[in-house]
């Protein structure tokens, strides 16, 4: 197990280094000088040169890369060219909206998806089975934007048929007013949670279908369970490692939808910052932001893989008890 964690950590660092090169390169293959792009089309050559010098862009690429890496390693992500604020502070401020939204959405997706998947797997025939199947197929195929719009049309305050949840914005003082902040995340989280939950349901059901008539479930039945109960307990435990992995993947898959939903609900999250930074060519900031996010998602992948290992004793390297009796 320790060996696996170390190996996985090494992979994490290698992948991070790989990504940093890709991000760095993507920003340098821009036509023209980065500083010229950043300064805008109407700027004087002196201004461009000054900017270049200020940002260290007049140095060679390897030197620039090394300086960037060393800054990142020291936790210094640079400052925004437009606002002058520290990238780290700004990103962290935005993440306080995005992260709770992702986590809230993921929890909803698990609450919706796993139990319904279990129901789908235990009721092998009949009306409920088909209804669940069609609903999950349709709900999993809805574009996040459209799903959000439909929810606004039904529940949005001032717009919807039963306007009970705020459909726009986030309290100015953020989590300073937790009730308001929470309620403004309800519809956004539902939008991503329902869509992701439908996919989670399909995964859960197909994983459980794979073990529903296996010897493991029969054995649990032989110990005194009905098939439904055996699937709920033994079956779910057996597919748990797989579900952990799927959850980790959904985390990454949900993010596109989360960013879309953030924009739709005018939430001051990472989406608007990233998109406007890319649009404004605030490139040094974009570079650090993207790297920070990449590191975050790689870390999520790392945690997922380790959790998968822990949930599956077959993958844990344990002391062999072979040959005790035979």
């Amino acid at each position, binding site marked *: 197990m320790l060996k696996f964690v170390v190996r996985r950590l090494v992979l994490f660092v290698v992948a991070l280094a790989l990504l940093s090169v890709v991000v760095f390169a993507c920003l340098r293959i821009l036509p023209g000088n980065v500083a010229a792009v950043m300064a805008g089309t109407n700027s004087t050559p002196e201004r461009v040169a000054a900017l270049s010098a200020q940002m260290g862009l007049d140095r060679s690429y390897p030197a620039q890369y090394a300086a960037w890496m060393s800054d990142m390693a020291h936790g210094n992500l640079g400052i925004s060219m437009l606002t002058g604020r520290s990238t780290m502070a700004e990103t962290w401020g935005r993440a306080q909206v995005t992260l709770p939204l992702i986590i809230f959405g993921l929890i909803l997706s698990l609450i919706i998806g796993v139990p319904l998947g279990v129901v789908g797997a235990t009721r*092998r*025939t009949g009306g409920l089975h088909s209804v669940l199947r069609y609903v999950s197929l349709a709900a999993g195929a809805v574009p996040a934007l459209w799903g959000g719009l439909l929810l606004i049309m039904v529940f949005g305050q001032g717009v919807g048929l039963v306007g009970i949840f705020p459909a726009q914005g986030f309290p100015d003082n953020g989590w300073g007013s937790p009730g308001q902040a929470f309620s403004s995340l309800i519809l956004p989280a539902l939008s991503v949670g329902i869509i992701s939950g439908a996919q989670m349901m399909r995964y859960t059901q197909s994983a459980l279908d794979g073990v529903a*008539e*296996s*010897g*493991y479930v*029969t*054995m*649990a*039945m*032989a*110990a*005194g*369970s*009905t*098939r*439904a*109960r055996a699937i709920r307990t*033994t079956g779910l*435990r*057996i597919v*748990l*490692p797989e579900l952990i992995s799927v959850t980790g993947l959904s985390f990454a898959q949900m993010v596109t939808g989360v960013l879309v939903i953030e924009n739709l609900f005018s939430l001051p999250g990472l989406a608007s910052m990233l998109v406007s930074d890319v649009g404004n060519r605030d490139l040094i900031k974009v570079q650090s932001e993207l790297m920070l996010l990449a590191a975050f998602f790689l870390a999520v992948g790392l945690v997922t893989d380790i959790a998968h290992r822990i*949930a*599956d*004793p*077959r993958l844990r390297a*344990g002391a*062999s*008890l*072979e*040959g*005790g*009796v*035979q």
Partner: protein
Amino acid sequence: MSLEISNVSVAASGAPILTSVSLTVGDHERVGLIGASGSGKSMLATSVMGLMPSNVTVRGSALLDGQELVGLSPHQFADIRGRSVGFVFQDPLASLNPVVPVGTQIAAPLKRHYSLGSAERRSRVEAMLEKVGLEPRLATAYPHELSGGQAQRAAIACALITSPRLIIADEPTTALDAMTQVQITHLLSSLVDDAGASLLFITHDFSVLARVAQRCYVLGAAPESARAGSSTAGSSNVGSSNVGSSNVGSSIVESGETHELLAHPRSAAGARLVEAARRLSFSAQNADQMPVPPRSHEGGQL
């Protein structure tokens, strides 16, 4: 505890697997059920105990100490299994839950049916492990950490932990090597006798069966008379497309004392099985001339 199966017919998705099977296991008796691969012998045990997949239908009567089993609800079946009836399956590594320690799995029937303290459960599990010849420390081991023989011993412990009065062993030795087969069959029959339980031992191998069962039943292709019977018995799925499958299900073609049957098999199926056992034991070099049973696929069941 006695099990009295009479005229049980089993069909999977309308295709007959067993036709009009009758069989009795008396109190304290060890009875064998033998048949070639694909003859549906496992299906008999699973279907009268409610372990069959949802597409399998069962008709007829099976009395467990006078209680009718056919037609019980899933919950009634669950209440019987693990309490009155214990099961040992073919491949322990395909039936023991791979992600749960064996001790927990051995305790499962106790937990399902009796309200005991966890300390009491643990001591019973440890006692049971010793009975089946495993060290108590193996309670915390996972199935993949055990050898095939050890795993089957743990599976036997699962089946016997609640002292059920009937044990159904479904090819319990098939997945094991020859030496281990002998050990496991001895262990199983001595434990069953000690507990005063009955045993239904299902196998395709006469050489194993001879060690376990006093009496046995041979399962083979149903005779003509049974075929006629099955078509008039009118299964609800008469029109189902069972194209290509020539049989109308297996049934009991022969029964009697194991040793007598082994010496003088009367049915073709019995003779083939005896012959196979002989050839395996006495002239392994001629094994390639062994009659190969027709390829067939049991519906969804291993």
